[in-house]
């Protein structure tokens, strides 16, 4: 079981974040969600630095990544994660508004585990986030914590 493992949500838009959290709340997994407001914070969390310096060690169960974010965008975060042998096993789900073919192609080329387009209709968005949270946060068995070198 991975009950202890957090879900990392990278979302720069506070409204989208609130809506996503509202959806997760219905599934009672919102307390597992750690919210990052840009790509740099995601990397801070993963590498235990900045405001996450003193967090408990260990990788999240999943990273939900928005594409368009300030400072470091989603694709850059994805590239960093998949280039680091310690971070590479973390499932990364792209959660974005973009339906553009080149975003899809590039995400998968960089090693994204899933690509979800945020639906405009709230009930669809709701069910999408719920399903994603349930699947990646509860159902899916994450990779075992390897002998991870400390930072």
């Amino acid at each position, binding site marked *: 079981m991975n009950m202890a493992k957090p879900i990392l949500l990278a979302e720069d838009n506070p409204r989208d974040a609130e809506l996503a959290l509202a959806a997760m709340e219905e599934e009672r997994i919102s307390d597992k969600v750690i919210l990052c407001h840009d790509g740099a914070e995601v990397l801070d969390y993963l590498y235990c630095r900045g405001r996450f310096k003193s967090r408990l060690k260990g990788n999240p169960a999943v990273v939900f990544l928005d594409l368009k974010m300030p400072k470091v965008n989603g694709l850059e975060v994805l590239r960093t994660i998949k280039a680091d042998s310690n971070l590479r096993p973390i499932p990364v789900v792209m959660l974005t508004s973009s339906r553009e073919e080149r975003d899809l192609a590039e995400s998968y080329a960089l090693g994204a585990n899933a690509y979800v387009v945020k639906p405009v*209709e*709230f009930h669809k968005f709701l069910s999408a986030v719920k399903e994603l949270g349930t699947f990646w946060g509860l159902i899916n068995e994450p990779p075992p914590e390897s002998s991870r070198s400390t930072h």
Partner: protein
Amino acid sequence: MESATNQQSQTPLLATEGTKPLADVAPGATAFYRVAVAWFNRMTIEQRVLTGFSLVFVGILIISAISYRNMSTLLTNSGLDGRSHDLLQLLGTIDVTMNEAEDTHRRYLVTGETSYLEAYQKLVKQKPAFTVYLNDLTRGSPEQQQRVGVLDRMMDRQLNAESKAIGLFQQEGFRSVKKMALEGAGRRELGVIHQLIAEMDAHERQAVSQRVLESAAGTRNSIVLLGIGAVLQLVLLASVYYLIRHDITERRHVAEELQHRGELLEAANKELEAFSYSVSHDLRAPLRHIDGYAALLRKSVEQSLNEKAARYLQTISDAAKQMGQLIDDLLVFSRMGRQEMLATTVNLDQLVKSILADLRLDLQGRRISWTIAALPDVQGDPAMLRQVFMNLIANAVKFTSTRPTATIEIGAEHSTSSEIVLFVRDNGVGFDMQYASKLFGVFQRLHRADEFEGTGIGLANVRRIVHRHGGRTWAEGVPDRGATFYVALPTRRTES
């Protein structure tokens, strides 16, 4: 712009070439000159160039002909000079010989010494040859020939007189010829002969000097003409060089211009792509928020929500959803115009079959009588053509939803060797033909939103795709009786 001034600056070069000689003909030729200029102004660039070249060519031809004539005159004259020289020599010889014969025969008459007769006897033998030479050398000049006739007669008479005197001397002795021996038997004839020879000599010398003058004039003429010819040829060469260079410059300009435009187009396309990307990404987010917060609001006040308030919230959600759909459709439409096209053979039978399979959820609970003819293969992009028939068939299904039994027919008709015409016909609500031109416009709808759903982009997509295939679209309809949508695709693929 630069190329245009170049073209104009080259034509006067050829124009003066062509028209100047005309203007110089005579002061009275100004009218003709004016006509020629008017004619020249009416000509195209190619005609002007051709006319210029033709005139220069004709000039060179005329010069060559005149030079050739001058040269042959020079050659003839030098031949004639040789003859004149021979004639003068011959006349001198005759003069001397006749003189000698008269002299020596007198000495014979006085002395009776036969050795003095040698010169006379030699002359008698030579005389026929002299006549032949004289006639030969004066052929072509009647004046000289006439003199030759007289000369010939005089020579005969002198020789006759001398032979008579010699005969008399031999028969009757010195006394009988004493007078002749002192005076000379042919003295009178000899005088005439001297005079004739002098005349002929003068005449021939005059002819020679005249020919010398003529040859000199001809030579000068030829030199001048050859100079002009050389200049004309230089002009011709320069013009050819200029035209070729001009052509090359022109081509380079056009190539540069094309490249520049290509770059501009590419930049515009990139910008458009960035624009639609940002539309797709940034416009959706607020719509999602409107719908999301409306839903959250509904949830948090559910108990106290009255019917009116519930409807308002529903309308907010519906409007947001509709705008999301519009944005999606517009992006698809924009992508249709930019997307690279594949070129393969598309099996329409299979295409239609797969579309019907995809539509089966929408067809649940409907009674539709399908008539699908065997369809030909067409050339084009499979995904795009699928979009075309998907839109047309979905439209037919949508607009027959009010019929208890819908009839939808898909087939091909009136196809020619250059075009395949396909149609989708239904017995739905149809349309008024006066709005037929609006049917294929972006966001054009002929029905109210509450009658039939849709954003009005489907047929615009159909038209855009068919146009990119080089084909045509049109529709026929009768209100409440149904509609037929036609798609004509070229049999040979044309890139657009």
